[in-house]
Each structure stands twice: as C-alpha cells, then as structure tokens.
C-alpha cells in the first residue's frame, strides 16, 4: 500500500514525541469491542474491532477423520482470510504468506493454552469432532494478530456443541456448549523509529522495522512470533513480555464479558 512521504514523516515525528493518533500513549490500545453470537448459523461466532480493524470469527464443528498420528483425538483447524474488501492491497486468491502467518500464530496460542481439549472430541474409531475456526478480516487497520486471537477465543468460548446420533449431526435444539478451558489473548508490538508501540495501526505497521506478538494466559507465555526484518534487544523483549502480562488482564476481562462469564 502506498503512504505519502508527508504521512510517514508526520507519524514518525509524532511517535518520537510519544504521540499517536487518538491515543493515550505508545503502549495503549485503541478502543476494543467484542460481540459474540452474531452469526447464529455458525456453532460459535464473534465480531471484534480494534479501532478501525474489524474481524469476524466463525466456528464450525463437524464430524471429521482423525489425524493419523492421533487417532483418538479431535482436530482443530484455524484459517485467516484477508478479504479483498478489507484493504486495497489485498487481492483475491489463495491465502497469502501474511494470512498463513496470522492464522498459524492464532492457532498456536489457542492450542498451547489448551482452550479446546481435543482428546475429548473422540466419537468412535475413525470418527472425531473437527473444530474449524475461520477468521475473516472485513477492514484492515493493523494488528490482525490481536484482533484475530480475541475473535477466535471469544467464538470458541461461546460455541454450541453439536450431537452425533445414529450417524447424523444434530446442530439445533437442546445443545450444550463446546467444553473449553482457559483464555488466551495476544499483545502485538511494533518498533518504529526506535520506539516500541503497542497495537500498531495500519499506517504504523507500514513502516514498522520489527514486530512482536506475545500470546499468553494468566500465568504463562503461550505463543510468540517476531515479524519483519528488524530486530529487538533481549531487554526490549523482556519489557514487552512484562507489558503483555499487564495489558492482557484487561483483554481477558473483555473476552469474559463478551462470553457472558
């Protein structure tokens, strides 16, 4: 995407002075909203916006074949779709490396935090439940990692659990919830002009030298991903981890509220 030199200099200059468009500081989030259950055909769904970034996650649960190496466990599949409607720079077609990276980082956090216990998704030999999470990006303005993780986690926490009876999947009526435990969220940082900022927006991501996503639950780091060609010092990484544990308290609260817990 093209950003004018004037825009770039303006943003760099403001960042140097610790100022950001419509924010309290370098380490604050834009406004976040999470609404669950927006797409009732899906077993679970959540719409998340962080500033002008808008994503929707849908969860479908189907009867699936187990993976060869784990014949008695259910499967979990996460995909991210950067819809061409979300940005002028997204093209139709197979998932870009960017989309694959986002989906894999979201997937790692969810798996590592053990939100879905796949061992409980066994039905009968050769048949297990497959949980499919699709994160659809409707409008891009940076930080898809955190928006995607919030949406995927919130959708999972509010999913219905279909039943399998006499060879048929029952998706309506008296259903319980998909059993979940734990909550994972992520905090994404970017380095712009030697400043570390939290929750980079689309303009800030454009000239970020390095990016770090830290996914965690209350006590542990669960997934990390460093991106873009720049680097971080060990000290910078330590401080981003500290900030993540601090900021994630609010994120978990937002997820809990949205999930009605």
């Amino acid at each position: 995407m093209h950003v004018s030199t004037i825009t770039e200099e303006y943003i760099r200059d403001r960042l140097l002075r610790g100022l950001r468009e419509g924010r309290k500081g370098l380490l604050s989030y834009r406004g976040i909203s999470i609404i669950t259950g927006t797409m009732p055909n899906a077993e679970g769904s959540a719409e998340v916006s962080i500033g002008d970034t808008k994503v929707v996650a849908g969860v479908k649960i189907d009867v699936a074949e187990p993976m060869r190496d784990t014949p008695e466990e259910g499967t979990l599949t996460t995909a991210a779709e950067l819809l061409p409607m979300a940005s002028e720079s997204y093209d139709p077609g197979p998932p870009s490396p960017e989309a694959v990276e986002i989906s894999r980082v979201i997937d790692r956090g969810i798996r590592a935090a053990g939100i879905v216990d796949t061992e409980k998704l066994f039905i009968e030999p050769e048949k297990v439940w497959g949980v499919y999470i699709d994160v659809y990006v409707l409008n891009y303005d940076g930080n898809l990692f955190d928006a995607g993780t919030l949406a995927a986690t919130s959708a999972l926490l509010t999913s219905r659990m279909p039943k399998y009876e006499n060879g048929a999947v029952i998706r309506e009526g008296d259903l319980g919830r998909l059993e979940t435990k734990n909550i994972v969220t992520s905090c994404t940082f970017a380095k712009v002009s030697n400043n570390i900022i939290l929750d980079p927006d689309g303009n800030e991501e454009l000239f970020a030298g390095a990016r770090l996503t830290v996914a965690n639950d209350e006590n542990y780091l669960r997934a990390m991903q460093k991106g873009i060609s720049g680097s971080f010092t060990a000290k910078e990484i330590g401080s981003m981890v500290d900030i993540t544990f601090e900021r994630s308290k609010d994120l978990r609260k937002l997820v809990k509220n949205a999930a009605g817990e």
Partner: protein
Amino acid sequence: MSKKESKDLMIDGKRLDGRNPDELRSISIKANVIKNAMGSAYIEWGMNKIVSAVYGPSEALPKHTGDSEKATIKCRYTMAPFSSLEEHGRPGMNRRAVEISKVTSEVFSNIVLLEKFPGNEIDIYIEVLQGDGGTRAAGITCAAVALAMSGIPIRDIPFAVSVGKIGRTLVLDMNKIEDNYSDADVPMAINPRNGELTLLQMDGILTGEELSRAIEMARHAGETISRIQRNAIGEQYGQIDA
C-alpha cells in the same frame, strides 16, 4: 434426510415462518461499514447477513482484463465457511459463486457509466457471512447501496428479489428451507427507474403466465426494497462529519 415436499411448506395459506405468500422478510441496510472501501454496506435480510464493498476505479489488472473504451466491473460473490447451519464450507469461489459473480457483474455493468473510466476496473465484493436463502438477491441489493456510496456515477440503484413457487402459489422472497423444497425459483434484479430486468434466472416448473405474475410481484416488492436502500444512503448523507 426425510423427503420433504413443497406441499409441506404452506399451511392454511401461510408459510412456515408465518409470512403471507407476497410478504418480504424484514430487511435492514447500513451503509459505510468498511472504512477502507470507496463505498460499502451491510444488509440483514431475514437471517441473511451480507457485507459488500466497492473499490476503484483503478487500472484494470492484469491488463488483458481491461477494455480500452470503458470500465470493467469485477464482482466477487463468496460465502464464508461458517455461513450455513450445515457443515464447514470451503472459502473462496466454487462454480456456483463464479456464476453468481458473473451475472452480478452484468447487473452493475448495466447501470455504471462505464465509458467514464476506460481501461479501469471497478471491484464489487459481496461476502455472505450468514446465508438463509436468497443470498444473491440480498447481495445485489446490498452492493447497489455500496456502489451508490462509492461516488462512482450510476444511472440507477437496482434492487433484487427472488420469487418462488410452492405448489401452485407464487411466493415472494423464499428462505433456505423453502428454496430447498420449492417448485420453482426466479431471482431477479430490476432497475426501478424503468422497471427493466438486469438479472433473470429460473429453475423448476413455471407457466408463462406465472412468470409474468412473478415479475409483477418482484416489481411491487421493489417499492419497499428501494425505499430501504434509499433510506440507508440518506442516513449517511444526513450525518455531516465536523
């Protein structure tokens, strides 16, 4: 699945969801929902939830898809993998989506002043987030609002609706279950200014006389649909950003 027949779809002249044969589902449209787009809109039409966005005009790429005398409309209709109550779908285009995208491109090629933008493309995206029958009609109705909001010059704001047949009764705007077991389905898009049709598809069994009545029903429903479209557009122009 037990075999259902169309006669089960109506009881005492009422449809399963309580509607009369000539009754639309409830429709609401909100314009300007995708900030990055030139124009966008979100529609809830019954249980359908669809978002549409318009980008362009921009240079047609790859070059051979462009026309040196006029703009090319490139529509892309897709359904999210979580959009149905059935199993997880595949994202992107299947043969059905390719066909719907093609006929939808033709609907909008009819009303955009294409000659203003030679060599350019105009991209119209329609994403079905939740589907419950009649998604192509709802998608076109929604995309027409997105296009109007984009500022690209157009001659008219088309609406679309489907008319079906249950037994011997023509019914307006079928939902998914009706669509699955009905005797005929006729999706149409119409330019309200001259009443002409720019989309017409049909499958099932229908007499010529029934088709005429179906078109009349669609035109009549268009008065309501067009009003909802115009209100969605008007709401945005009513809000002046300081």
